[in-house]
C-alpha cells in the first residue's frame, strides 16, 4: 500500500468558527507573519506533506462573531516558503475575477520561491458581494464559473509550458539569452478571455504546480475531472465520502485520464484530547459560542481517530486533509501524537529529511511540456497524455 498522505489546513484560528475565542490563541497576532511561519514549520518538522490555506474575495467568516478577515493566501504561503524546504504549500486561488495571466504567474512564482513546492486550489467566486467588490461582472451561476475555471486551469498549464525548460541558453557566440524557438505563444481563446502568451515567468520547477480542486457539488465535477491532480472531498459521513470518490473516479476516466494520476484527499476536522470526555467538553464550549455545519469530524482521542483514518485509506483515499478545530491546541496533537502513531502503524511513510518537491510528495511525475513534445519524442509522451491535449489528435 502506498503511504497515506497527510495535509493540514492552517486557516484562521482553526476550523471551528469559535476557535479564536479559546485562551490558547493569540488573537492579536492572527495576521502576524510569525504565526504562519511557526505553524508551517511545526507541520513540516513533523512530516506533514502539505498545508492548505483557504481564500476568497469576500469575508472569511459570517458576521462579527467570527474571524472575517484574512490575508491573500498565496502571499501568506510565499512568506513561509523561504523558511521551509520540504512541505507543500497550497493556497486557494479564485479564478472568477482576476486575470488568468496574473494568476498563473503568481502560482508559478510560488513554485520558484519554494523550489517546487507550490500547489493551488482552484475556487470560484459566485457571490454578489464578491462581484460588487470588483465591479465588472454580476454574480454568475456556479456551473458557468466552474466551466471558466476549467479554462483558467487549461490556459495556466499552457502558459507554464510556454517556456521550454531549456529555453534560457545564454549563448555568448550569438549574443542570445534565450532560444526563442523554445518559447511558445499560447494563442488561447476561452469563452470569456483570451491569452496570447508566452508567460513572463519561465517554466516553474515542477513544470506544472499541482492543481487541487474541491468537489463542492456537481458544478465542480467537470473541473475535477479535467484539471485536478488532487481532488478534495468534503462530506459529512463516510458512506457519502466513498460515493463521492466513486463519482470522481468515473468522471476522471470518462475524461480520458488515468485515475492513478489523481490523488484524492478526504477532509476531516479534528478536535483531539487525551480522553473523550475532555474532548466533548471542549467541543461543547466551542459550539455554545458558534455552531455551523462541520463536515466529517472527529471529536475524541488520537486512539479513536486512527481506525477512522485506516478505514478511509482502505476505501481508496490517498490521504487526509486534517482541519484542526483550534490550530494552537490541535495542531500540536496532530504533529506530536497522531503523525508518529500513523507512522508506527505503517500507514504513513517515513519522515526523512532533505528537500522535496510537492510532486515528489504526491508521487506525481513532472509533466512533459505540451509544446516541447512536438519536436522531440512525441510518441514517447503521447501515451500518458489525455487525448484532447495530444497535438494533432
Amino acid at each position, binding site marked *: 500500500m502506498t503511504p497515506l498522505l497527510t495535509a493540514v489546513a492552517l486557516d484562521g484560528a482553526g476550523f471551528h468558527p*469559535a476557535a*479564536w*475565542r*479559546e*485562551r490558547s490563541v493569540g*488573537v*492579536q497576532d492572527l495576521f*502576524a*507573519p510569525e504565526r504562519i*511561519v511557526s505553524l508551517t514549520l511545526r507541520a513540516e518538522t513533523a512530516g506533514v506533506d502539505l498545508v492548505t490555506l483557504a481564500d476568497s474575495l469576500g*469575508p472569511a467568516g459570517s458576521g*462579527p*462573531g*467570527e*474571524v*472575517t*478577515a*484574512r*490575508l*491573500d493566501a*498565496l*502571499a501568506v504561503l*510565499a*512568506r513561509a*516558503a*523561504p*523558511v521551509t524546504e520540504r512541505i507543500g504549500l497550497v493556497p486557494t486561488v479564485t479564478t472568477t*475575477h*482576476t*486575470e488568468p*495571466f*496574473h494568476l498563473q*504567474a*503568481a502560482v*508559478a*512564482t*510560488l513554485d*520558484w520561491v519554494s523550489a517546487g513546492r507550490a500547489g493551488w486550489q482552484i475556487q470560484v467566486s459566485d457571490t454578489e*458581494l464578491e462581484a*460588487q*467588490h*470588483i*465591479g465588472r461582472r454580476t454574480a454568475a451561476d456556479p456551473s458557468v464559473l466552474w466551466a471558466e475555471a476549467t479554462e483558467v486551469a487549461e490556459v495556466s498549464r499552457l502558459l507554464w509550458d510556454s517556456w521550454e525548460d531549456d529555453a*534560457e541558453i545564454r549563448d*555568448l557566440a*550569438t*549574443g542570445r*539569452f*534565450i*532560444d526563442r524557438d523554445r*518559447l511558445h505563444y499560447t494563442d488561447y481563446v476561452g469563452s470569456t478571455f*483570451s491569452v*496570447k*502568451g*508566452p*508567460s*513572463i*515567468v*519561465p517554466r516553474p520547477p515542477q513544470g506544472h504546480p499541482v492543481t487541487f480542486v474541491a468537489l463542492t457539488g456537481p458544478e465542480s465535477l467537470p473541473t475535477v475531472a479535467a484539471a485536478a491532480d488532487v481532488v478534495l472531498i468534503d462530506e459529512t459521513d463516510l458512506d457519502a465520502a466513498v460515493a463521492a470518490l466513486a463519482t470522481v473516479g468515473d468522471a476522471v476516466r470518462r475524461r480520458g485520464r488515468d485515475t492513478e494520476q489523481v490523488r484524492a484527499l478526504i477532509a476531516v476536522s479534528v478536535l483531539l484530547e487525551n480522553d473523550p470526555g475532555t474532548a466533548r467538553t471542549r467541543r461543547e464550549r466551542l459550539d455554545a459560542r*458558534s455552531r455551523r455545519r462541520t463536515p466529517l469530524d472527529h471529536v475524541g482521542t488520537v486512539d479513536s481517530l486512527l481506525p477512522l483514518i485506516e478505514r478511509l485509506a482502505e476505501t481508496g483515499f490517498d490521504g487526509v486533509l486534517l482541519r484542526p478545530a483550534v490550530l494552537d491546541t490541535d495542531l500540536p496533537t496532530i504533529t506530536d501524537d497522531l503523525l508518529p502513531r500513523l507512522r508506527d502503524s505503517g500507514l504513513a511513510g517515513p519522515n526523512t529529511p532533505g528537500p522535496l518537491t510537492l510532486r515528489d510528495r504526491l508521487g506525481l511525475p513532472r509533466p512533459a511540456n505540451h509544446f516541447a513534445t512536438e519536436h522531440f519524442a512525441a510518441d514517447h509522451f503521447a501515451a500518458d497524455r489525455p487525448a484532447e491535449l495530444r497535438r494533432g489528435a
Partner: protein
Amino acid sequence: MARKQLHLAAHFPGVNNTTVWSDPRSRSQIEFSSFRDLARTAEEGTFDFFFLAEGLRLREVHGQIHDLDVVGRPESITVLTALAAVTTHLGLAATVNATFNEPYELARRFASLDHLSGGRAAWNVVTSSDAFTGENFRRGGFLDHADRYTRASEFVSAARTLWDSWTDDDLIADRRSGRFAAEGAGRFSHRGQHFDIAGEFTVPRSPQGHPVVIQAGDSADGRDFAAAQADVIFTRHGTLEAGQAFYADVKSRLAAHGRTPDSLKIMPGVSVVVGDTDAEAEEKAAHIRSQQVSGATAIATAELLWGIDLSDRDPDGPLPLQDPVVGSGVVRGRVGFTDPVATVAQWREAAESHGWSLRQTVIAQQNRQSFIGSADTIARQLDSYVQADAADGYILVPHLTPGGLDDFVAKVVPLLRERGVFRSEYTGRTLRDHLQLPTPQGAASGAA
C-alpha cells in the same frame, strides 16, 4: 542647517541591456537565491528599499521575441513576500500595472504584503494602454492614452479608500463578548468615473496604513498624478541640471494638493561604477558599456530609434542614412525614444565628429545618469547633488545579478555614513519610517 539625508534603493537588474547576463559572475534572473542575495546586500547597506520592475508581455522585434537581453522574470509581489522572510527592515517595492488589475484585488495584495513584511510594502503604479500588452488580458488595450492617468489616479484613490476601511482599532478580538471586528469594519464604497465598487474589505489595517506609493511617469499628467498621489518619484532626470529643474517643478506642484515638499521623495534611477581610482572606474565603465552593447544590441537599439528593419547593417559600419520612421511598430513592448528625429540628428553629429561606428555611437549614448569614480568621488557627488536639490536620493540600477551592488555597499556606503548624510543603522521599522513620510490618517471607524 542639518544636511539633507540621502535615500537609497536597489533596482533588481531587469530585462533591458543594462543587465549584463554574459558576465561569468552573472547568476540566475529567476531563482529566488538571486533576489535574496541582492536584497541582503541592500539591507546590509541600510538601503531604504528594494525595487522590482514589471513586464506583462515579452518584447518583440520584427514580430519575434527579443532574445538579446534578459527575458522573463517572476511575479513581483510573490517574490517580495518571500523576501520578507529573509530580510528584516528593507522596503519592498513592486511595480504593478493599474490598467490590467482592479482596486480590490490589488489593494488586498499590497495590504497583505504590508502585513507579512511588518510594514515594508511599496507599490510603483504604472499604466499601459497598448493593445500589444492587452493581448494577454481579458480587456485588451482598452484605454485611451489620455485616460491612463485619470484611471490610475482614481485607482489609487479607490485603493486608499479600501486601506482606510479598517481603522487601527477595528480589530477588537474580544474573547468574552465574542466580537471579532468593530461594527462596519472593512465596509467601503467608491463610485467614480472608472470604478463603481462597494462591499467589505477583508484585510485589517496594515502596519503602514497605506503602502508607500511610487510613480515613474514623466509627462505633465504624470507629474500632476505624482504630486497628488505619490510618496516617491522614480525619475530618469539624474544629471545635476535636469535633476534640479525636475525637482523644483515637481515639488512646486505639491502645495496645490495641500502637501509639504518633504512628503514626496524624488529618486532618479542611476548606475554606479566604483573603482580604486577615478581612472580605473572609467576603464571599468567602458568595459561594462561594451558588454552592454554587443553588435546585435547596437542594431536592435538603432531599430528602436529608426523604427525600421536594420538587421542587415554592419554594427561596426556607419549610421543608417535613412530618416527615422515614427511609430512603425517594428519594436513592440518597450519604451521607445520620445523624439526619434532629434535623437538621430544628435547621433549623426556625434558619430561624424568622433568618427564613430554605429556600435560606438550606441555605446556612447547613455540614457541614464552614471556616477563613475573612486568611492570617494561617488560619495561626494551623490551627496552634493542631493544637497543641491537635484534629488532626495537614488535608485541604483546595477548591471550584475546579484553582485552588482557589492562594491557600492562595501566602499561608498561607509563614506556616505562618515559624511553624516546616510543612516548607519535602521532607526525605524517601516518603509515610511525610512523615507520619513507622514503616517496616513485613517478614516473614521466604519465609514462607508
